[in-house]
């Protein structure tokens, strides 16, 4: 009886402690959560109560569908390339990167905001940019018209280049601690058993880095999918990235289009949320299996 008292008392205090610990997070979440709630509400609020017409309108709009396809493709390509290059660099150089100076040089690009980086890409790669001018002087091209269109182009090349360039350091930042924590004895074991570089990667590194890679992918993909500034600077008139389109619907001066902006952003949020949950459950399942020794 007395122990029961004690127990429930403990439970209670730990519960209220939990509330205290959560309170700061809740305070910070009030605004974003309210924003999210207001966006959902504006996207389903018709003249007479609840309506899904905006979503129907959205999925009938060719402009929206091409925008979604373009955004997903561009973000996917940029993220995958950044991860592959970041992984290769980390693999090759992680022993050097443990020292401070080389590490700082890799992270230098992180100091610049995305917008500045996008502008640098324009200054370098536009048809009247620095590289085109150099090509012209050297004589590789006869006029700036011959230089390939790399910025404000319909394939999103400019956007992809900017993000790849900018996110590689982030990939390295995420992978470096993992690589430096892998005990060298694992490698020795693979070598003793006659394994080559590929086996080393597959059996030693991959199980370690896979969860981080999934995490990095999710962060970069959702960031690129919803970013505004770089696509607005480097994107073309059509197709547009989804955030540029939503911005135009929101600020376009046509008040009837405003709910479409909310609907499209809510849709994108749902996509990202689904992806994150899928990643979470996938990793959890692996963890459970690993705990039962069935990896």
């Amino acid at each position, binding site marked *: 009886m007395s122990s029961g008292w004690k127990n429930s008392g403990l439970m209670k205090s730990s519960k209220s402690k939990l509330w205290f610990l959560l309170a700061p997070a809740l305070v910070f979440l009030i605004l974003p959560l309210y924003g999210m709630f207001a966006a959902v509400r504006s996207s389903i609020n018709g003249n007479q109560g609840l309506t899904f017409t905006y979503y129907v309108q959205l999925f009938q709009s060719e402009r929206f569908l091409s925008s979604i396809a373009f955004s997903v493709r561009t973000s996917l390509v940029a993220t995958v390339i950044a991860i592959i290059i970041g992984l290769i660099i980390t693999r090759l150089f992680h022993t050097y990167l443990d020292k401070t100076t080389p590490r700082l040089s890799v992270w230098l690009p992180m100091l610049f905001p995305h917008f500045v980086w996008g502008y640098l890409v324009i200054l370098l790669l536009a048809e*009247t940019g620095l590289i085109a001018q150099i090509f012209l002087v050297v004589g590789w091209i006869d006029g700036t018209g011959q230089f390939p269109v790399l910025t404000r182009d*319909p394939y999103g090349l400019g956007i992809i280049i900017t993000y790849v360039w900018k996110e590689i350091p982030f990939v390295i930042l995420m992978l470096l601690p993992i690589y430096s924590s892998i005990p060298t004895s694992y490698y020795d074991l693979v070598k003793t058993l006659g394994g080559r570089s590929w086996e080393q990667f597959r059996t030693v590194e991959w199980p370690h880095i896979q969860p981080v890679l999934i995490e990095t992918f999710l962060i970069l993909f959702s960031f690129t999918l919803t970013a505004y500034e770089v696509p607005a600077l480097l994107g073309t*008139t059509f197709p547009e990235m989804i955030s540029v389109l939503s911005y135009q619907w929101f600020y*376009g001066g*046509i008040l009837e289009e405003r709910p479409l902006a909310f609907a499209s952003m809510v849709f994108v949020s749902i996509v990202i949320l689904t992806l994150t949950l899928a990643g979470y459950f996938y990793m959890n399942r692996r963890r459970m299996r690993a705990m039962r020794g069935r990896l």
Partner: protein
Amino acid sequence: MKRFYFLLFVSIFLLIGCGNTNEQSSNSFDEITSQPWSEIEEAADGTTVRLYMWGGDEGINQYLDEWAIPHLKEKYNITLERVPMDTVKILQKLQTEKKANKQDGTIDIIWINGENFKNAKKNNLLAGSFTDKLPNFNKYYQTDDPALTTDFGTPVEGMEAPWGKVQFVFHYDESKIDEPPASFAQLQEWIKSHPGKFTYPNATDFTGNAFLRHVLYAKADQPSDIYNEPLDEEAISGTANKMWGYLNNIEPDLWRSGEHYPNSLTELDKLYSQGEVWMTMGYNEARAESLIEQGVFPETTKSFVMEPGSIGNTHFLSIPFNSPNVKGALTTINYLLSPEAQLAKYKPNYWGENTPISLEKLSEEMRKKFKAVDRGDSVISQQKLEESFLPESEAAYVEWMEEQWFNEVVQE
């Protein structure tokens, strides 16, 4: 735990407290405007006035920073603060404040016209009618001139005061083009024979939209079929089809084969200054002057207008519903409408734009000063401007154009 509940209650009370300040009566604006003018001016002494306006033009910003702000300080002891912001965003901000019932805003004056005025008026974002109170407006302006009483087809009803008047012109580089096209048909020929040397800004851009409306005017039997009629999509479908036909016809020979349109006039200006394209355009017939002086445009830049004419409009200053300093705002607007402020704005060194003031109402001396202003070589003659003047169509055309251009030209 107790402490947690305490904090919760305190924050709830604070939130409720914040929302409880909307007791101010809504007719206080009428009360203020019914006071004698001298009292309004006296009360404005020593106050701060915040003017929110589009900040994308250096000449305009310089006019305010280097001329208007010091003169206001000297004459009325008013501190004018210029806050650069896109007009649509200003309205967005007001709309949010309206929703939150915030009666004490941060904006005293907004620079506004066209669809923005229409939307602001429709959503009750403006304080009310005030122009008949302004001494300078009544004394020096033709108060019943349709160019001042309607704004893109929307009746002004005294809710905004005319600050300036501009007309749309095209710019070209004389060293590259001998004879600019005189009509849209000739422009089409010119584009065909000079592929990649012409483009126009996106339809969501103010200037790009105006270019498109010129094409619409040109394809109608009479321009007045458009500007005298409210938007009726069915009635103009024939004209609209001719316009889309024209635009699609020139598209392959535009800069970058029409795959990308400049997002803004600034982007087009940049292409022009780099020699990528040979023509640019814009509202304000004297726009090129300050750009030439700054070395952005080549010195051989000249202007031209084409048949059937050039669209002109008036732009205005207005007071939002929750201006914290109405008296300061009234005094400032009245001063910005005065002959000396208009004269300084007319001179090409800062802004160089035309004035809505009636020259015949000015004193002999002042009229001479206006006539003596040399607007610069790139500005076409006042007579030519007046001959080719076309009024603005109803604001609904602007929105219609924004939407349809995308479907008809870009996605095709």
